[in-house]
């Protein structure tokens, strides 16, 4: 679904991402892990169009998107969800959801003025869909509350719901568990899995919590200092020397640390 070939990004003297290549299978849950500063969020920014790559190509669903604008990429089905939830605080939860709908002719100036009935009809459809999704993520009781009054975890749920409104084929989740209370975290986890299971949405997630990564992802891509250093199943990654070294710095003088529970 997503094919990234040798992309790079430099900021002034700093190379954030260097010759990174990987691909994400359709319908999978793939994790992107690595120590802080490895370039993971930069990769997300590059793939979703918020940054332009200095080199390399990005293909999504067979189309080359490395020159596309971020909003075009989102409309094409590759939706980005941010680490710090970006929900317009002075809009209500429902408005946030309605905003994200695709194909609302009322967003075109002329149609908004001259085709009010068509706009209203579509608005009704969108509203129903939004409320459905809100029910799914257990936020429907807050539909009319200002988004600014939501807790951090609730905002993350809202962003997830909003992403669903855009009818994505693939979602980029940036540290969805960070800073979320455990109860909500479980809900989030469940929703992420449902995304793939029920709706066939491909999930590409940056995450630091290893338990989460191991339990839900089929494939793990590991980055360090701007490069991909490992790419494979969760089990293989766990035992990969390079990965362990990246996370721990140097191997202990007396040999490798204990691998995580499985026989090598």
């Amino acid at each position, binding site marked *: 679904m997503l094919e990234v070939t040798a992309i790079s990004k430099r900021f002034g003297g700093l190379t954030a991402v260097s010759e990174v290549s990987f691909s994400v299978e359709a319908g999978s849950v793939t994790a992107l892990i690595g120590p802080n500063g490895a370039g993971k969020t930069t990769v997300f920014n590059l793939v979703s169009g918020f940054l332009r790559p200095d080199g390399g190509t990005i293909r999504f669903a067979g189309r080359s998107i490395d020159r596309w604008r*971020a*909003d075009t990429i989102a409309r094409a089905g590759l*939706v980005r969800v941010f680490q710090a939830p970006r*929900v317009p605080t*002075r*809009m209500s939860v429902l408005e946030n959801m309605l*905003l*994200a709908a695709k194909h609302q002719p009322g967003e075109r*100036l002329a149609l*908004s003025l001259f085709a009010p009935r068509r706009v209203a009809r579509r608005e009704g459809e969108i509203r129903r869909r939004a409320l459905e999704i809100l029910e799914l993520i257990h936020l429907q009781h807050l539909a009319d509350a200002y988004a600014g009054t939501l807790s951090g975890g609730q905002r993350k749920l809202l962003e997830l719901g909003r992403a669903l409104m855009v009818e994505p084929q693939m979602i980029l989740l940036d540290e969805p568990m960070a800073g979320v209370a455990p109860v909500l975290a479980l809900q989030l986890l469940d929703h992420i899995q449902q995304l793939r299971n029920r709706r066939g949405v491909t999930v590409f997630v940056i995450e630091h919590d290893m338990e989460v990564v191991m339990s839900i992802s089929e494939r793990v891509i590991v980055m360090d200092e701007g490069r991909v250093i490992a790419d494979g199943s969760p089990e293989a990654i766990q035992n990969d020397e390079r990965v362990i070294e990246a996370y721990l710095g140097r191997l202990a003088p007396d040999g490798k640390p204990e691998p995580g529970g499985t026989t090598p």
Partner: protein
Amino acid sequence: MDILNPAFWTFVALIAGIYVIFSLGLYVQFSLAGLPNFGHVAFMAVAAYTMAILVVRYSVSLQVAAALGVAAAVCLGLVLGIPSLRLRADYLAIATVAGGEIVRYLAMNLPGLTGGPLGSIGLLGPGNIASYNQEWQGLLDRLTAALSIPLGRSATRDLAMALLVWALAGTLLVVFWRLERSPWGRVLKAIREDETAATAVGKNVFAFKMQALVLGAVLGALAGLLLAWQIGVFSPDDYQPTLTFYAYLILILGGMNRLWAIPVGAAAFSLLYSGTRFMDFFPLSLINSGSRAFLRLFLVGLLLVLFMALRPEGLLGNRRELLLEK
């Protein structure tokens, strides 16, 4: 002029109506799309000059000249907007004032094109007095004649003009009120709050901002044309940056984000403006009429500061939305 004179009130209403349209243009750009355009007056200037030049030099008819005036303002908006929409807020403010001042300086210093410091009178070169207003005055006369049937002697040109202006202003207010509450308005609201979020859900932020800018240009142009027709002459000095800040004051009086507060703000402003010009009671009688202009502008500045500082929600606003800062 005495406060009970209906001509005074007609005039106040007239100016208020024109400023409603002008401020509505700023409202679309600033309150809806979040663009601090400090050079809004340039749209007035470009439209008025284009219309006057076409009428005086090329004998173009009023409607066509007016339409082209609006088109010229739209062009200016596009030219300014395309590069500058990505600027940070205060840089955009500075760039737009600078842009507006360029327009004014060019108008001042290209007498061959614009009549120079003389303004519209000088459009036919030295020694001739140019006037662009005949057709409009003719239109007004017919309207006045029509009005005199029900109203008799109360039907003056100013009254006809005031009614025309308010008919237009009222229509525009309704149109933009609906737009604000439409999905289009919703996208703008999101853009105002968080452009990145709007982009992430697939909205072309640039296009929306551009639309708001162009709409603002159209409204500014209409206000400029109406003002030019009302006064009959203009010069570059009539398009100082101060006028843009009149519009800001009007928006501020209404609390910045309530469309229906604009007429209230415009009426208050127009009263302040004409009041200091025409009313002669104490303490205004202490200041001679030449200096009243300075007093007026001093008060505008004072009100800007006071309202921004002490009552940002304006005369009618509520603080609730204001408090939900990011």
